[in-house]
């Protein structure tokens, strides 16, 4: 990968294998001796955690598929009765899988915000970021398909609302949007055909994600990791081999992460769930409040902040498409926010903005805050939050990079450490 291979086969067998299938060389180059900046902190352990979560979801998912029935007549029973009550440890595997989605998104959000803070999307790492955005969007698609499968009220109506987003195209070309929704549903409404194809796709897309993850890591291994200082590696004094330094560090924080995960699975398995999804899907009755899973709430708030259908859908799509342009919107030469006094503040406001949008998305469409006699409709907050979301990327990122005066960055990773110890 970065630099020459340092692998030396030691036994007769490994020399023989290396000349035929250099798989041990590949493992050594990409994992064992892969040179890594020596200052990676806690926030860099989430890449490994995400790989673990993908594995957990695939293994538990394959098992659940052995007991699940993708049919609008039997899906709900096959989950709530067969898997939850009859299959040995079905309840455990199902709760690992359903809460796994939440833990997966928790980890991916930390991973994305870490990348934003330390400028990991900047040259020469743009392609890593782009592949990451693709993985994130595929993850949202997978989670959406998966949420439909238990065929509860939220499953059904969530599927209806999200697929109906395409009907906004009717406002551009009449009947086009409706033709697309009918095509997606395989019916005139979400129904049996829809459930079957969502099951098929829910099984497929995680393997596509695994493929894109391979590309993501491949692209990472060409320039090597960014680091909290956001500077390039200068020499061997800046690097450590990935194993054992980061295998152990990743494993340690993975254990803590799994501890939290297990705590939720065993003690609060329905913490992230919605009680309405324990009612079987009913096409004739919409629940009074349709709420998506927590990890989609900020986007839902942005969709609802616009009282016009087509523009609302465009805002939703735009909020994701915006991420594609991040590497080119940031004009600053300094990567890490540690040395960017203005961007650092704006970053934390952005993080708070996403939480605020998430909160607003979890409330009803007509909710309001009462401050004394004043009534503050939450939709105003959503509009303000949406404005900041787009302004952060399209205005602040380019302009702040232009006028901000970054603090001086260290010469190398080793330099500030050695200087502190009096070695230089």
């Amino acid at each position, binding site marked *: 990968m970065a630099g020459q291979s340092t692998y030396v086969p030691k036994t007769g067998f490994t020399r023989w294998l290396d000349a035929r299938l250099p798989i041990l060389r590949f493992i050594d180059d990409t994992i064992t001796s892969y040179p890594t900046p020596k200052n990676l902190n806690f926030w860099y352990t989430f890449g490994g955690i995400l790989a673990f979560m993908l594995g957990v979801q695939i293994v538990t998912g394959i098992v659940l598929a052995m007991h699940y029935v993708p049919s609008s007549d039997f899906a709900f029973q096959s989950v709530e009765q067969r898997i939850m009550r009859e299959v040995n440890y079905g309840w455990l595997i199902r709760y690992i899988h359903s809460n796994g989605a939440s833990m997966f998104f928790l980890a991916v959000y930390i991973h994305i915000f870490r990348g934003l803070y330390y400028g990991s999307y900047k040259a020469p790492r743009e392609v890593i970021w782009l592949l990451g955005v693709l993985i994130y969007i595929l993850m949202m698609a997978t989670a959406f398909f998966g949420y439909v499968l238990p065929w509860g009220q939220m499953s059904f*109506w969530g599927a*209806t*609302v999200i*697929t*109906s*987003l395409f*009907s906004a195209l*009717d*406002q551009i070309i*009449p009947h086009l949007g409706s033709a697309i929704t*009918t*095509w*997606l*549903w*395989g*019916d*005139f*409404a*979400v*129904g049996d*055909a829809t459930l079957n*194809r969502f099951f098929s796709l829910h099984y497929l897309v995680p393997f596509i994600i695994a493929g894109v993850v391979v590309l993501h890591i491949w692209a990472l291994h060409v320039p090597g990791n960014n680091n909290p200082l956001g500077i390039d590696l200068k020499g061997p004094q800046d690097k450590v081999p990935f194993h054992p330094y980061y295998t152990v560090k990743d494993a340690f924080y993975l254990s803590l992460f799994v501890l939290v995960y297990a705590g939720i699975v065993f003690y609060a398995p329905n913490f992230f769930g919605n009680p309405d999804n324990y009612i079987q899907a009913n*096409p*004739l*009755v*919409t629940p*009074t*409040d*349709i709420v998506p899973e927590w990890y989609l709430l900020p986007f839902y708030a942005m969709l*609802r902040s*616009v*009282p*016009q*259908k*087509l523009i*609302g859908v465009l805002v939703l799509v735009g909020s994701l498409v915006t991420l594609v342009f991040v590497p080119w919107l940031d004009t600053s030469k300094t990567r890490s926010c540690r040395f960017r006094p203005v961007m650092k503040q704006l970053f934390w406001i952005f993080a708070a903005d996403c939480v605020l949008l998430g909160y607003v998305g979890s409330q*009803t*469409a*007509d909710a309001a805050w009462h401050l004394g006699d004043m009534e503050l409709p939450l939709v105003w907050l959503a509009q303000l939050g949406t404005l900041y979301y787009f302004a952060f990327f399209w205005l602040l990122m380019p302009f702040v990079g232009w006028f901000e005066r970054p603090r001086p960055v260290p010469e190398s990773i080793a330099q500030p450490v050695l200087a502190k110890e009096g070695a230089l």
Partner: protein
Amino acid sequence: MDQGVKTGTTAAEPTRRDFLYIATGAAATVGAVFAAWPFIDQMNPSSAVLAMASIEVSLAGIQPGQQVVFKWRGHPLFVRRRTPKEIAQARAVPLSELIDPLADNANLSDSAPATDANRAIKPEWLVVVGVCTHLGCTPTVSTPQNPQGDYGGWLCHCHGSQYDVAGRVRKGPAPKNLAVPVYSFTGPMKIKVG
């Protein structure tokens, strides 16, 4: 390789090889499109779904002021027997106040205006698809005993759209009036929908 023809920048006569390249490429492209179509079209409603596309509904027993919900093509179908007061209320609305000025009535032309008369075949019977034109939720009916929203028709709880007693959208984000499906009276108290 026929080196002599390919070398140099001068435009040579098209060769047999050029012809074969283009012909093969064109055939492959057309073939790919034809091969893709069955895989795209299999997603559309199957013949079993299409066979269930129309229903007969008896209106007997529906009281004035009452709405009954039927299931049609997987969607709720609202059949509302309107009171004379409600009809008068719907007729009093000027077209200029409407968000969607078109009737959205599958029994009329696409350009028919959204007058109350264009929304129902018989004024007493309003038949609409109970799918909010925003993102597909089922709106809640408004009655004098249990009013929903400000227009006496329906309120959609998902994103707050409101409809009047003719099923016309009066407050966004829904862009269009509740759709009137193709239907006809097959008897004084019987309709065929679809």
